[in-house]
Each structure stands twice: as C-alpha cells, then as structure tokens.
C-alpha cells in the first residue's frame, strides 16, 4: 500500500513540467541546503567552544536559555515556508483505501521535511562535543529526545495553524506580546523556559511532557485531516462574496487606467500578489539593520545606499521582477487582444513608482536617525524610480515562470527569477548605485556621493522610452516561447 503512494510521489516529482527546465534551480537549492547543513554542523561544534572559551559559561546552560527563541523562530519560518502535506488526494478518495492511510502517508512525508531534518545537523555535533567533554551520555540523549519531540511538535502545530485561520492570530498575538515584554524588559520568558530545557537534561521523567504534547498534536491534526477528506470540506476551495469594483477614479491615467485598474485588483485579490506588499513592508524595516549600527559589517557609508534602495524599493523589486508573469494565467487572452505594450508596461511602472513614493513617505521614521539617513533614503528612492524600475521590468521580460496567483506558500523560495540573464541584470540594481556613491563619497564628500546617485536616477528617466521599446521587442520576440512556458502549470 505505502509503496503505491511512494511510487506516485516519485513520479509526480520527476515528471512535473518544471523538472526539465528547473535543473539550474535544483542545483541552486541543493547548494543552499548544503550550505545550511554545513553552517548548522559547524555551528553545533563551534557554539560549544565559543561559549565555553570566550564567555566562560556552560554551553548547555546558554543553549537552554536561548532554546525558546530557537523554537519560536523555527515555527515562524515553518509557517512562512514549509509546504503542507498535500498529495494529490482527489483521485485517491474513491479507491479502496482507508482514509486514515492517506492521511498517514501525507503526514509521514512531512517527517522527512528539510525543516525537521536540519535541526539534527546542529544538535548532533553539539551533543557529540558535550559527551566528549564528560557530560553524561544518558542525560544528553534524553535532552536530545526532548528536543526532537519538540521540533516535531512544531511540525504538527504548523499543520494545524495552516488549517485554522483564527488560531494563528492567537498564537501570533501571544508571541508578539512575549516578544514585546521581553524587549522592553518587563518580563523575561527565558527565566521560565530555561529551567524546563534544563530539566529535559537533568530530570529523566520530564521528557514525558514534550512526548505528551507531540502525541496530542498528532492526534488533533490527524483527526481534523481525516474529517476533512471530503470534496465539500477540507478539499473545497472557499469562495467569498465579492463586490464588483469600478475604480473609476483611476480613469485620469488615460489609456493606462485600463491596466492599472486590473493590476490593483490583481494585487488586492490574489494571495501571492498580496505577499509582495507584505515584502515591501518588511523591507521598510530592513534599514534598521544598517542605520542603527546593529550589524557591524554594514556600518560603511556605502551600505547606506544599499539599505536605501531596499527600504524604498521592496515592492518594486518583488513585484517588478515578475512582470509579465503576473498575467501568466491569461496570457493568451492578452496576446490576442489589440494591446499596446507600452500602456501595459506603463501601468506596472506607475504602480512601482507609486509604491516607491509611499515607501519613501513611510520611511520618514528614519528621520530619527538624522537628516543624513533620510537623505540617503530619498536618493535611493530617486534611483529606484529612475533606474531600477526600468531595469526590473527589463529583467522580468526574460522570466518565464508561470505564477499560480492563488498560492502564497512559495513567495520566498520560488524557482522564479534565477536564470543567468536575470542574475546579470540584478547587478546594476544593487551594485551600480553603491559604486556611484562610493565615487562621489571618496572623491569629494558624502553629499557629492548622494548627488551622483540622484543625478543617475534622474538621468534614468530620459531612457524610459528606449527601455520600453526594448522590452516591447523582447515581448514580441519571445511571445511564442512565453505562451508555451506559461502553459506548463506547476
């Protein structure tokens, strides 16, 4: 029975439409996975000696104290990135399978998820070093069992969170509250959790608690999945009541308005597109790493421009690189209509410009760190609007990955933009303004650096038409290839 499921999985993996074209991406992901494993492994060994020799503390105590953060961060990452155990369930429903078997298999698959395995690469070496340093073997093993069950509890908690919308708000709220209290120094959660993790090591029976939690979560999620295996329950796609919107106030944009109205609906009504807005909000805070001096390596003046580009360009970078892929699901319609590409493109361009301006206004909070910082942000915005908006659209013309608008699970690690051409085109987005600034900064003064970048941004406007013509040409030449590529779902 299980072998049936496994062969089905195997075939769906190797025969998926993106398999052939995605080899580069597979290698790329493989590389990152390997990098993570190596980092985790060396971190496990390194942490022990670092804590022991540099801080003169007991490594186990320190790790136990920080463990609660580890687990919370893991849960957040899972919620954002880990895919749900969905196998192609519909065709199996009427076959003579026990429903519990279908769910068991789907759950079994998650056990081997990268998100679960990766932790072992930190804790194994760490434990080995512990044992070498005369920590009792039995206790270390107990501690490990406790942690493994907690990690797997996260796994199943994530499955439940993904199904129940309101639960995520409760848990998210609790986490935010604890985080806030901790930050302002009212309440230190680690004081209460550290003894627990400590206990996993020193008190033999305490391991029963995480095991109990795991069993509880497995049962709850298992039951809710089995119950939902009906076409009109868990497998149904939910349809909300919606209103027709005319957005007539946009008509002042002339012919571009037709597309602009559509693009705004695209962003409002599709999870995947909405997540680009979320990304741009996140990027708004990215600057804190740079301007507060939190990360030492980012202290150089040139990094300010780098940060400014990101702070104001979050939407531009995350939305723009997928033009025209956003329209992939109805590309044949667009291609059989008498569309002026220029109007189509300028709609996307306006969106990016507006978003950049909004980000710039919102970023005025950075005034707290001085005029100088906000000046960098304004300069970054000018450069984004003048140069990057064009570069991003240009790079997007080569991206032929269809976008499944309704899913947002892969918004970060999609196989998308990574082909040689787009990598090449992403260079000027970041590197060029930094180089320009460096020239002005070191040759004359910081203000000269800003001036050089700003002038480059303003000069970029002059090339708008040239670039749009160029992109139009690419769309035309690649039309048939693009239509074909967009047909390959998933």
């Amino acid at each position, binding site marked *: 029975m299980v072998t049936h499921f496994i062969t089905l999985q195997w075939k769906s993996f190797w025969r998926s439409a993106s398999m052939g074209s995605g080899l580069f991406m597979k290698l790329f992901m493989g590389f990152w996975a390997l990098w993570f494993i190596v980092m985790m492994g060396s971190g496990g060994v390194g942490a022990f000696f670092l804590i022991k020799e540099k801080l003169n503390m007991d490594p186990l105590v320190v790790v136990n104290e920080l463990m609660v953060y580890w687990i919370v961060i893991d849960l957040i990452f899972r919620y954002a990135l880990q895919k749900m155990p969905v196998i192609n369930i519909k065709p199996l429903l009427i076959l003579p399978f026990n429903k519990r078997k279908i769910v068991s298999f789907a759950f079994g698959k998650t056990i081997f998820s990268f998100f679960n395995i990766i932790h072992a690469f930190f804790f194994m070496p760490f434990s080995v070093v512990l044992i070498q340093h005369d920590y009792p073997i039995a206790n270390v093993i107990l501690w490990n069992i406790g942690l493994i069950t907690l990690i797997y509890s996260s796994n199943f908690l994530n499955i439940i969170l993904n199904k129940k919308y309101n639960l995520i708000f409760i848990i998210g709220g609790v986490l935010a509250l604890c985080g806030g209290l901790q930050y302002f120094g009212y309440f230190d959660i680690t004081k209460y959790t550290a003894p627990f993790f400590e206990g996993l090591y020193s008190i033999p029976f305490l391991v029963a608690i995480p095991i109990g939690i795991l069993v509880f979560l497995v049962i709850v999620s298992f039951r809710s999945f089995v119950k939902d295996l009906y076409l009109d329950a868990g497998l149904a796609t939910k349809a909300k009541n919606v*209103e027709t919107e005319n957005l007539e106030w946009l008509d002042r944009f002339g012919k571009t308005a037709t597309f602009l109205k559509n693009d705004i609906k695209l962003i409002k009504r*599709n999870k995947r597109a909405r997540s680009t807005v979320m990304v741009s909000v996140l990027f708004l805070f990215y600057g804190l790493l740079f301007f507060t001096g939190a990360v030492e390596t980012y202290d150089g003046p040139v990094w300010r421009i780098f940060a400014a580009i990101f702070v104001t360009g979050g939407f531009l970078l995350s939305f723009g690189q997928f033009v025209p892929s956003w329209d992939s699901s*109805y590309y044949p319609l667009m291609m059989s209509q008498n569309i002026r590409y220029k109007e189509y493109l300028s709609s996307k361009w306006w969106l990016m410009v507006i978003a950049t301006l909004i980000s710039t206004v919102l970023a005025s909070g950075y005034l707290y760190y001085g005029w100088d910082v906000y000046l960098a942000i304004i300069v970054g915005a000018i450069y984004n609007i003048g140069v990057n908006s064009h570069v991003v659209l240009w790079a997007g013309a080569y991206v032929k990955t269809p976008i499944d608008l309704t899913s947002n699970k892969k918004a970060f690690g999609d196989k998308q933009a990574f082909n040689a051409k787009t990598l090449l085109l992403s260079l000027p987005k970041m590197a060029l303004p930094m180089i320009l600034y460096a020239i002005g900064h070191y040759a004359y003064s910081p203000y000269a650096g800003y001036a050089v970048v700003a002038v480059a941004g303003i000069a970029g406007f002059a090339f708008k038409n040239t670039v749009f013509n160029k992109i139009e040409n690419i769309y035309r030449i690649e039309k048939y290839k693009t239509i074909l590529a967009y047909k390959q779902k998933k």
Partner: protein
Amino acid sequence: MIAIHNLTKIYTGNTVLNIDRLDIHKGESFGLVGNNGAGKTTLFSALLDLIQPTSGYIENKGIKVNENEEWKSITSAFIDETFLIGYLTAEEYFYFIGELRGQNKSDVDALLSQFEDFFHGEILGQKKYLRDLSKGNQKKAGIVAALIGNPEVIVLDEPFANLDPTTQIRLKKIIKELSADPEITVLVSSHDLIHVTEVCDRIVVLDKGEVIKDIARSEETLKELEEHFNK
C-alpha cells in the same frame, strides 16, 4: 477573409497540422470537426498567432497574422480558460475586454442586455470571481466576452462542451444570428456533429492535421459525417 497557405506545424517530428490551402470567406459560418488530436485547437491557435507555424502562414483580412497585429482589432476568440481573468467578477471582465476593444461601459451594458437569457441569471451580479464559477458558467462568460466590440471574425473552440442543454440551444441560436450577419465570420469547432451541422454553412473535417472533407451544409451533411466517423 481568412486564407491559409501551406500551413504546417510539426512537434518533434510529428506533423500535427498540414493544410495546403484553405479559404474562409467573409460572412461564412465555418465548422471544424475532427477527433481528438486532429489539430482543431492548433489551427485556431495559429490563426490567433499564439503558436508559430513550422511553415506557411495565415492571412486574416489580407494581413499576415504573424507580421502585423492590425487583425486583432477585428478578431475575437474564446479558446479555453486562459482567456478568462480569474480574479475578476464577470462584469469587471466584460468591461475590461470592452475597454481593450474601445467600448465604453454603456456599450458593453447594451450588449450584455441581449444575453440575459443566455446567462440565465448565473453570470451577472453573482458576487463571485470568475475562478469560482462553474466550468459551464465560465464558458458562458468567455463566449459573450468574445462578442464585445463588434468583431468581424469570431473564433470559438468547443463552445458547446460543458454547457447544459438549455444553454446549448440558446448558444445555437446566438451563433445562427451571428452567421446571418454578412459582415461576421464565425469559426466554431466541436465534437458534436449535430450541433455543428445545425449552425454552420460549411463544415471541414480535420484528421491528423489534414483537411479530408470540406462540405457545404445540406440535408445529407449529418449523415455523411456520421458515416465518415463511423468507419
């Protein structure tokens, strides 16, 4: 109106389309029948310049479709769900297509009011996105959208599939009315011989990409076709 010259399409050694010469005249209602894989959709896609022929070309009103895009303003089509924008409501979709084809809102409303029967109250004012409509209702929306903007050439791929009996009958009436207009050329493909013989003046049978029958409709047509496919 439409002229096909030496058109071939070859996918990795498989010839899926091979038509020496086929002329479709203005005002004709043209039916395309054939089994699965006969090349019906491929032919329509080539006509809309969505795929590139291996050799040969198609002219639409004297314009080579792969060289100039002027034909797009007089041609409209509904091939499959990739012609729908899933996250729009039906009204928004119609207005969007209308704007692309130079029609204002009241033009579109006027056109839509003619199809209230056809919609059967299941399309307009539904508070649903197109992606949440049933297959049949999506098709209704797509077909009507293809009639917006006074097109001279209308291409419908398998319009009868997925429609309920009432809607099929209403659709037949719509297509007949369109073909009665000497300015409008209608191209329809179908698996259903009865429907096609009812609405089309001229029927072409494709088999493995080649035209093997090209007949003007008469009393005998249905019988002739049934015999052909029953071989």
